[in-house]
């Protein structure tokens, strides 16, 4: 690795004890010796295995559930339905007042996506749990489903989630998150060229090598220890406490060791139901996603659609940008209202544009609920923005890298969501990229600075 210390040399302290020094990772010795303890490396005598009965339909009313055959299956200890869950309707971000509660731990009366958890079976062995799950009878009345965001937003579309009432998340700003900065129409009127393009992405699965799961052990003092690979320990503890209506002091979470997360393990999905199983049976419980569940059931990155309209001058300045973004939350909110909101702040990109108009919608469809994944709300936006930047440069016959220098944000520039830019480093990154990629730009760009006045 090469550290280029000439950038920011005048505003940086060197000779710090830790920063800038290579340090061995504390967890690696455990990894290479096989001693690192992942949640599934905990094994308790008498441990039960939990398997889910899942919805085979994208959208259906549940007429009835019959668990009698499953309960009789050899090895089955307990079968759980919505009735057993103390506070069955929840939403993860309620902890930071982003409601309403809109998701069921176990389906109650309705399923809204194919794969939704309906009944949990606890048995002595994985195999017995699996076999018994296959004997649960659920009578469904299939309902019309909607899979496309623009279809979902049309009047008369099937309502996916009654807790919202309409197929979009209602922000305090209305049906979408809005950014208004300058006068975008005046910007378009003044522009030499206008380019409107639309960009689309599909859901993406994180595919961690270790699947999602937890092991719960009831302790002698009426507490429950939950060994989990969650990426969000305290979110999970607090949500479990709400769902189980159990004080947090009764829950002891042990984790932090995650066999790959990438954002896919920040939802609160396996822990509450496993703790409930341990409470109702008095036995340790293991709930681990199969590889198939990891790929099909765990939240993916949201599908997005992004429409960008830019006004650009012949000299390379972008003078107006209008963006409409759509984030496909699937059937439930999870982290998507937040992801869509992040997009609203991000769509101007790392560029200073004086006239900006942004609307971003968080849309509900009958698809697998999406959630966090590495820079969610931003990553797909960056793909769209940078492709758009290349197209704009081509449109005005300018070098694409020089075009970015002209528009790059620098310290002190006001961003569209009215945060002044601080600590920008885009100019310097592009200067280094220009050198590293042997993509020369005019000398005046190599002399620019993100923070030095006049440069």
């Amino acid at each position: 690795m090469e550290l280029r210390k000439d950038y920011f040399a005048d505003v940086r302290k060197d000779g710090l004890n830790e920063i800038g020094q290579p340090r061995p990772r504390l967890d690696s010795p455990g990894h290479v010796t096989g001693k690192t303890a992942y949640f599934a490396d905990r094994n308790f005598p008498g441990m039960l295995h939990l398997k889910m009965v899942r919805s085979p339909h994208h959208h259906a009313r549940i007429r009835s559930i019959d668990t009698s055959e499953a309960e009789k299956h050899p090895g089955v200890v307990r079968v759980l339905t919505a009735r057993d869950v103390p506070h069955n309707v929840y939403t993860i971000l309620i902890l930071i007042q982003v409601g309403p509660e809109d998701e069921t731990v176990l389906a109650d009366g309705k399923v809204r996506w194919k794969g939704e958890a309906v009944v949990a079976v606890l048995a002595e062995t994985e195999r017995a749990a699996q076999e018994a799950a296959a004997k649960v009878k659920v009578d469904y009345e299939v309902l019309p489903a909607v899979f496309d965001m623009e279809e979902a937003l049309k009047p008369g579309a099937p309502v996916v989630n009654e807790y919202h009432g309409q197929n979009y998340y209602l922000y305090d700003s209305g049906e979408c998150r809005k950014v208004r900065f300058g006068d975008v129409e005046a910007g378009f009127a003044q522009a030499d060229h206008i380019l409107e393009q639309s960009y689309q992405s599909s859901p993406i699965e994180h595919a961690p090598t270790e699947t999602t799961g937890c092991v719960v052990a009831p302790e002698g003092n009426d507490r429950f220890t939950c060994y989990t690979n969650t990426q969000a320990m305290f979110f999970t503890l607090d949500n479990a406490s709400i769902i189980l209506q159990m004080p947090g002091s009764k829950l002891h979470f042990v984790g932090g060791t995650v066999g790959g997360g990438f954002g896919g393990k920040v939802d609160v999905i396996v822990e509450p139901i496993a703790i409930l199983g341990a409470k109702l049976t008095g036995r340790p419980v293991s709930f681990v996603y199969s590889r198939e569940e990891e790929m099909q059931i765990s939240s993916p990155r949201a599908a997005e659609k992004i429409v960008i309209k830019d006004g650009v001058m012949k000299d390379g300045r972008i003078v107006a940008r209008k963006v409409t973004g759509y984030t496909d939350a699937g059937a439930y909110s999870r982290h998507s209202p937040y992801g869509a909101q992040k997009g609203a702040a991000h769509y101007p990109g790392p560029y200073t544009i004086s006239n900006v108009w942004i609307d971003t919608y968080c849309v509900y469809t009958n698809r697998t609920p999406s959630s966090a994944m590495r820079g969610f709300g931003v990553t797909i936006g960056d793909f769209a923005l940078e492709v758009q930047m290349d197209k704009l440069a081509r449109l005005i016959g300018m070098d694409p890298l020089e075009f970015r220098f002209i528009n790059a944000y620098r310290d002190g520039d006001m961003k569209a969501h009215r945060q002044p830019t601080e600590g920008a480093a885009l100019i310097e990154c592009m200067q280094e990229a220009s050198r590293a990629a042997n993509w020369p730009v005019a000398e005046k760009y190599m002399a620019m600075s993100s923070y030095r006045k006049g440069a």
Partner: protein
Amino acid sequence: MAKVPVQFTLNGSEKAEFIESGTTLLNALRDKIGDTSPKGGCHQGTCGACSVIIDGELRLSCLTLAETCNGADIKTTAGLAEGGVLHPLQRAFLDAFATQCGFCTPGMITAAKVLLDRTPNPSREDVVEALSGNICRCTGYEPIIQAVLTAARANSQNAA
């Protein structure tokens, strides 16, 4: 369910257990014998996290029935360090930053061990081929390939 006896050598020590017929070697090692270094990433033979060495051959323990291992000599990553001293492969994985979440690491090291036992001076292509059954979602593989090549060099220097 009827139990069957199994007996094998694991990292040099004798093990004997009664298991349910049909138990995979992965589950027998992890749940019965307590060696959790082989990991279950898929339980269907596609990720390599469960790789172990049986009589010198690289095997997926999730697709191996424990009862077929009677009398076998089984080695896992947990038994690789000798007297608290890391094996050159383990050392190289540490130094090359070839582990991130670490979930694939024991399987990777096992696969690399079988390669180096047979081919002490492998080419890069040999390493890629030897690790091709092991999935790593974190590192992008390059540091792992470098670690194996480094370990091979360290080995041959020691031998010289």
